[in-house]
């Protein structure tokens, strides 16, 4: 299933609910452009909800990193929530679990801003 992005707001925080695969050719460009557009509009508090992300390759991991640096370089914050076991393992293996602010649920991520 190709990636879909749904958006909702919690106060001044934008939550992107991602579902499907984030891989080279599937969803990676979409995520990058969505985050870039949000930052351009001044929406720099972003939560990525990965609960429905079924698969990610190294390109997908790279896009998460690019999203993170795009937001951070503009003075914003990006957090991750609802990681599945597979995604959690990928983040640990690549040492990115020490970089990203990761939470178990949306409420905790929102409270952390």
């Amino acid at each position: 299933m190709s990636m879909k992005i749904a958006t909702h707001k919690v106060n001044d925080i934008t939550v992107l609910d991602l579902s499907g695969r984030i891989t080279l050719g599937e969803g990676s460009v979409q995520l990058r452009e969505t985050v870039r557009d949000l930052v351009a509009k001044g929406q720099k508090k972003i939560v990525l909800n990965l609960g429905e992300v079924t698969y990610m390759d190294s390109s997908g991991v790279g896009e998460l990193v690019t999203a993170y640096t795009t937001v951070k370089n503009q003075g914003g914050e990006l957090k991750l929530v609802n990681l599945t076991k597979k995604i959690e393992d990928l983040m640990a293996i690549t040492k990115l679990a020490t970089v990203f602010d990761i939470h178990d649920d949306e409420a905790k991520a929102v409270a952390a801003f």
Partner: protein
Amino acid sequence: MADPTTSRVHYSLDSTLASINTVEQTVHDYALKAGFPEDELCNISLAAREAAVNAVVHGNRQNAAKKVDLSLEFNDQALTIRIADQGEGFDPDSLPDPLAPENILRGSGRGIFLIRTFMDELKFRRLASGTELTLVKYKKISKST
């Protein structure tokens, strides 16, 4: 004489993003047939996918005139995946360490690292024209009581 206990298949694929998906699914199905458990199938097919990305995107640069060769074989001991491109070749020793602090925030460069993480062996072979990656996953031997 071919070893009758080893199953082998070979595919020649176009250098397209669709072929990367084909490699991933084909390896997944083959590893299932080879008897690998569910929790290893995803990692094996991901490793194969990363090797296919390497061949299609970095090796062949998605050149329609170039092919990617995929060979799979398994026996009682292991699953062996060979993926070859027709590109310019590269030096695997020159790849930056994606875990190094100066590289941790790079947007790319983790593919070979993930292959090494999920497979038991990774070998590089320079071909007359291109590069071949060999990925090996050994079967865990279950102890019988």
